[in-house]
């Protein structure tokens, strides 16, 4: 009997945010990340028969997503992609006149360790978010992760501001408790 089973009906609710977050940190483009996540779900559906049940559903989906991301980079690094490498004119006197490939600004670069910690923290947050009732998870996500205005959320979900704050309060208590167990311990 396999340890894990697949339930595609719950994939979007349970994993789309996690997979999207995983992708955006690697491709840095919303539209491309969205497409890759969609491709991953579709490809996973077609490969369901190959699932052995040894890994968790999410681990299996991530492994497919990783392949999609690699394919994406292979595609943009094809001949056409290479011809589009951005060039920059280096203005230092010593090197005047040398055309160099633009050196990537490293101000936003994180160390491998930082990236790993951030990913694990993100994983813990999404795990906790998945345990919340749907409404609480939606409001918490919109308010805390997307950073939307109270009014915008109220209009979109058709709730009053005081209703929103009650939901936020319950969600925050549950999230804090869950994070206490899964991350802060």
């Amino acid at each position, binding site marked *: 009997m396999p340890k894990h089973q697949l339930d595609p009906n719950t994939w979007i609710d349970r994993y789309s*945010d996690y997979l999207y977050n995983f992708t955006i940190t690697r491709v840095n483009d919303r539209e491309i990340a*969205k497409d890759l996540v969609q491709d991953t779900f579709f490809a996973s*559906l077609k490969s369901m028969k190959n699932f052995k049940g040894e890994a968790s559903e999410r681990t299996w989906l991530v492994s497919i997503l990783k392949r999609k991301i690699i394919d994406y980079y292979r595609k943009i690094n094809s001949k056409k992609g290479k011809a589009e490498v951005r060039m920059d004119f280096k203005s230092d006197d010593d090197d005047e006149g040398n055309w160099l490939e633009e050196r990537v600004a490293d101000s936003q670069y994180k160390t491998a360790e930082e990236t790993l910690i951030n990913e694990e923290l*993100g994983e813990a947050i999404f795990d906790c978010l998945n345990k919340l009732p749907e409404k609480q998870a*939606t409001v918490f996500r919109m308010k*805390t992760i997307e950073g939307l205005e*109270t009014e915008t959320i109220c209009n979109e979900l058709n709730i009053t501001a005081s209703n929103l*704050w009650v939901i936020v309060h319950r969600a*925050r208590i549950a999230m804090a408790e869950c994070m206490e167990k899964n991350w802060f311990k």
Partner: protein
Amino acid sequence: MKNKSFLFISCDEAKHICDKAQYNEATPWEKLKLNLRYLWCQITRAYVKRNKKLSKAVESSKITCLKNSEKEQLKNLFREELENQHH
């Protein structure tokens, strides 16, 4: 009595202000009232500490997510694909 409620707030109200403060939506006056209660109420102090810890964790993780509309769109497309597979 009126003056007391003017400056002193209940524990629940303190928690509500603390929640709003996490999103920069608490007014300076509300913050003052929260700080006053924070000085003597252990429950408020514990709640503020925990709430701030959660905000810090979410902020430092730099997580992003799909918008509701994007998620719905993805759900619809996936549902169609799922139905096609069953046929």
